[in-house]
């Protein structure tokens, strides 16, 4: 019951404004662009388009995000609001090549 109440409260205070969208493409197990710049203290929607046949898992320990994106499909990940800094992300299924970072400034 308590958890339900907390969830309802959090839902009520979730901002209603649409977040700006940043498009990222996964092709040949690489992120394009591999560096994404976003403003400080702003929530951003990452729209990740996996154009490979293989699935990829967008992962970032620094951003606290993890999402599986099957081949030839898209995925949405919300990040921020964040303080200034660099936040690396990688593709867990192809970590040697799929590397990128979000620069917040």
């Amino acid at each position, binding site marked *: 019951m*308590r*958890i339900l109440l*907390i*969830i309802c409260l*959090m*839902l009520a*205070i*979730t*901002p209603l404004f649409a*977040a700006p969208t940043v498009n990222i493409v996964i092709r040949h197990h690489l992120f394009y662009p591999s560096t994404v710049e976003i403003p400080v203290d702003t*929530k951003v*929607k990452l*729209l990740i388009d996996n154009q*490979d*046949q*293989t*699935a990829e*898992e967008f992962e970032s*320990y*620094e951003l*606290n*995000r*993890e*999402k*599986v*994106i*099957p*081949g*030839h*499909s*898209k*995925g*949405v*990940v*919300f*990040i*921020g*609001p964040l*303080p200034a800094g660099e936040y690396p992300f990688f593709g*867990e*299924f*192809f*970590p*040697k090549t799929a590397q990128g970072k979000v620069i917040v400034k």
Partner: protein
Amino acid sequence: MLINSVIIILREVFEAALIVSVLLVLCQKLQLPRRYFLSSLGLGGVLSIFYARHIASISMFFDGVGQEILNACMHLMTFICLLFLIFSMGRRPYYKITVWAIAGCLSATLVGEGSEIIIYIQGFIGNEQLLETVLAGSFIGAGVGFSVGVFMYYLMINLRPRKGIAVSLVALVLISASMTTQAFQLLIQADILISQAPLWNTSSWVSEGSVIGQILYALLGYESTPTPIQVGGYFLSLILASALAVRTFNTFKWEKGE
């Protein structure tokens, strides 16, 4: 690619093996018929294939966060099932609740971990050269993860009943708290719960990417930068599940001599 496949599959199988081994031990200790356990495993397997096949369209539900919402629901369902299990175990009138709670936990765990394995492997179908390596790595990873589960099972099943139930209850309490924090994390990622600054950062001590970090994640739901919502959810679940566990342990009907 081989090493990467081993790590990916090992991580998924390890997480599932921990939960499955605890539940299997409970089935034995509580003398529940094995057919319920096996049918739940079967149901979880079928649902994970269905989820993996439709994940692309499920992901695009709710403006692109369908995957997070469904996964969060599965984690919350597991949490609720665990609470029911902790409450009902060993009480004859609540026998059916115990059986359904174990079935719910098992199925949800298998869907979550199994679907990711299927999604990973099915992407390589059509690329024979890579598929061979990926399958080899997956078998090694699954074998190691499965061995850990077997080890955990025999470690717990050979404990004296009182100790065995106590260890199982502690494991269930920790898993339930971990489920809540993971569900909250997914709802934050989906922009349903508000995103907050982390309460602390322990990444310089234990990185989430390290082996210890991965083991702690599977055992305790470890996050190096948890937000206040996650920490609050974790401790609330821990308190609630612990209170139920203590009550169950104190009122458990032990065999004579235990």
